[in-house]
């Protein structure tokens, strides 16, 4: 199966028009020694065989009936409208709307996304998406150095290990120094050399940081230092104070409205203040007027920051990003609206905290921290392996053993509970936990 429309006769007509006699002649610029006979790949499949093959392959993954894992990727209910909208081929088969006048549909949608994100976060401006929250954190770190002309980045302990690794990679590239600081050593680590202070809340362990304290201390101790606040699951904004209500400079997050899909695609939300607008990487859409009329329309704007104009002086190399995912995120937000967003946030915190309380009552299970948590928490188990095994036996995707990232923390798991876990799921899960303690 291929998707070339031409038949032989058409090809011959076209070759004649070009003035060559064979396809091979079109490749005369290529040194003979480079020309291949044939790739060592199997023959193409028919659509029927392809679908069968891919279905069989997919089923080598196990799909659990219910899941109690998060750790950066969360199971939330996605309204049917989301897939309806992103399956409209005028959206998914378009490209970056370079020709604005023929692309008002997608441009308006991006503008609406920008508006919705600023409404949700109460930040001043946002771009039209980054790849994910990890790389958004990394780009934010870079941006801090541009904004401050300093090159020391502090990350508060408790960030997702993969986000820390990502920030480290990007910063190493630009020769920016990074440090991970525990809360207890924060004050002493801060100084005027700091370009940026990054923290995650709810953090990797599900705990909500004391953001007012963090921002206060940074502002006091580190002049000019930019504050970057990030999170993996923005559904918490349905009940948590908006990022823009705190004294922060940049907000980053993973998106919403997409299935886990083994970790991607999703999107990175990236928002900042008006003051830092022109230091922000990534695509942005603005409203403008017709040159020869009074009508309004949408265009890509602030392109002077970008690589295709600025080349080596660009703020980042990011160009195409995650537009269709951004569209999904927009549709998710407007489907839920303020009421639904609040409901989701409420259900997550209530259900997760219910499980947390109930698990802590089971002999052998101990909570390690007392801080408020959203939809995740860490708990010490009497027998992690047995617990994980029993979950699987009951077709429950088990919590993440912390040893996955921290080999030394072999007795703890990171439990996630969302609105998708029904009462029955939760009861089964608690029963399994009990059994695993025996």
């Amino acid at each position, binding site marked *: 199966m291929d998707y070339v429309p031409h038949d032989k006769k058409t090809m011959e007509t076209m070759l004649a028009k070009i003035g060559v006699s064979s396809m091979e002649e079109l490749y005369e610029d290529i040194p003979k020694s480079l020309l291949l006979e044939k790739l060592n790949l199997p023959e193409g499949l028919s659509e029927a065989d392809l679908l069968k093959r891919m279905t069989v392959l997919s089923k080598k993954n196990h799909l659990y009936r219910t899941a109690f894992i998060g750790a950066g*990727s969360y199971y939330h209910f996605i309204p049917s409208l989301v897939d309806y909208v992103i399956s409209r081929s005028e959206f*998914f088969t378009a490209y970056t709307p370079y020709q604005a006048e023929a692309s008002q549909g997608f441009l308006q949608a991006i503008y609406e996304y920008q508006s919705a994100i600023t409404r949700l976060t109460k930040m001043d401006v946002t771009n039209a998406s980054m790849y994910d929250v990890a790389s958004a954190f990394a780009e934010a770190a870079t941006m801090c150095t541009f904004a401050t002309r300093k090159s020391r980045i502090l990350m508060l302990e408790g960030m997702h290990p993969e986000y820390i690794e990502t920030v480290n990679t990007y910063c190493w590239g630009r020769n920016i120094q990074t440090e991970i600081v525990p809360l207890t050593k924060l004050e002493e680590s801060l100084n005027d050399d700091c370009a940026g202070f990054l923290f995650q809340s709810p953090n990797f362990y599900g705990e909500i940081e004391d953001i007012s304290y963090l921002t206060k201390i940074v502002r006091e101790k580190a002049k000019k230092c930019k504050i970057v606040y990030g999170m993996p699951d923005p559904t918490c904004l349905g009940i948590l104070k908006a990022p823009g209500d705190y004294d922060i400079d940049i907000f980053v997050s993973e998106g919403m409205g997409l299935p886990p899909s083994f970790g991607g695609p999703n999107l990175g939300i990236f928002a900042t203040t008006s003051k830092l607008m022109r230091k922000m990487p990534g695509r942005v859409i603005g409203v403008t007027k*017709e040159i020869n009329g009074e009508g309004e329309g949408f265009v890509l704007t602030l392109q002077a920051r970008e690589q295709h104009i600025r080349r080596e002086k660009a703020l980042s190399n990011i160009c195409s990003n995650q537009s269709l995912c951004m569209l999904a995120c927009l549709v998710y937000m407007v489907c839920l609206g303020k009421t639904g967003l609040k409901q989701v946030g409420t259900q997550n915190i209530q259900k997760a905290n219910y499980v947390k309380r109930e698990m802590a009552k089971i002999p052998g299970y101990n909570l390690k921290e007392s801080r408020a948590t959203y939809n995740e928490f860490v708990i010490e188990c009497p027998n992690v392996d047995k617990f994980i095994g029993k979950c699987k036996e009951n077709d429950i995707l088990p919590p993440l053993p912390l040893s996955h990232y921290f080999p030394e923390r072999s007795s703890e798991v990171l439990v996630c509970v969302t609105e998708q876990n029904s009462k029955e799921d939760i009861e089964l899960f608690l029963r399994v936990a009990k059994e695993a303690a025996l």
Partner: protein
Amino acid sequence: NKIQLIFEKGYETTKNNFVPQMDIDEIPLTELLTSDNLRTDEINIPDIPEFEIVRHFTNLSQKNYAVDSGIYPLGSCTMKYNPRINEKTARLPHFANIHPLQEENEGAIELIYNLGKDLCEICGMDAFTLNPAAGAQGELTGILIFKKYFEVRGEKKTKIIVPDSAHGTNPASSVMAGFDIIEIKSDENGELPLDQLEFAMQEGDVAGLMLTNPNTVGMFDRNILQITEIVHKYGGLCYYDGANLNPILGMCRPGDMGFDIIHLNLHKTFSTPHGGGGPGAGPVGVKADLIPYLPCPQVISTEKGLACMDNEETTIGRLRSFWGNFGVLVRAYTYILALGAEGLRRAGQNAVLNANYLRVSLHEKYAVPYDRICMHEFVIDAHLPNGVNAEDVAKALLDRKLYAPTSYFPLIVHEALMVEPTETENKRELDRFIEAMLEIYEETINNPEHLKSGPHNLDVGRLDATLAARKPHLKD
């Protein structure tokens, strides 16, 4: 035609009901959160009736030109058909709904491994990472591998050579890895002058070269073997920007040309949908000696089967969370399985056929600065009669229900229109494009003012980009 944003479609007490009903007893939120973190204000996103949302986005979609609408000849973007079966396989529940950290992931791991292997075969490389989320992130990955490679060897290399015809991402990515740029001017054939390359390499502190081949004017650099030889001679590495891989699919391989690192754009060459600007995927392939530097996590084949490798001492690290844009990988793998060896070659060849057919059909009226057999694309220099320029031509195409070529790129052609039809365009559509272009040419003579004030048949007239940037209006 007043703009109506979705937020204007809300009602006060509308009851959408998507979320599961709460089925456990709640306790007061104030017991779970402090006043410092509990949100007390309402989120300013209205409750909008479901039907209004459906109509709103259906309507917006109809205001958007797409590959499904007609030819989309954006040079260097390879806007080919996005097969519907890809959408179906990516949505298979056992792909779409699995968690990145679950252990029972054999299908996903096998897909990643197999796709990597296939890309190795297609590109002549020894290993691929599929983690980068986009071509630009792939470039960054590649250049970070440059950096690591020389760091580990203890060699101080601070510069990267980039031709003036390169994509803007090339210099931008290089800078992100801490390199300075040496720009080399392309010669009159659009190729890289060997003498200047050698001259630059001789400096000693050059890490290597980033090259797109065929390049952005659609020319395959005939000296490619000498180029990579020169770079290697001085201890440099050769980076292949895979944006233009499509025309050489199955015909020749970057690895065989002497490239050490390559990034691909799955959304270009391998038919995954562009999605209005993402999600894409930017796999990076390397020769064997660079494997230790690949980002983590990697899937490797061991005696006991496939395994994930995470902590190689020499890795450049992690580029993003988890495994990359897995859903995009599923689509690309589906495409490769569909086409097979023969289909990939046919795709490449016909991309070249279509580009040359357009070129020879237009070059009598439109100046084509590099006017010989091209690969997947060619560039028009639209200095047209009566001061009509590339932008005017672009808008006139939109008026005819066609899309415009990439405009004002590459920078080495001033009024550039970079035309890439791809292999999935049929001859009737190509002829419609040619006819429109020739008609527009006539209009440059007969009615240039009409062209300069276009478009005339779309939802809006020509928009003022300068105003947008001067007074940014980025939200409602």
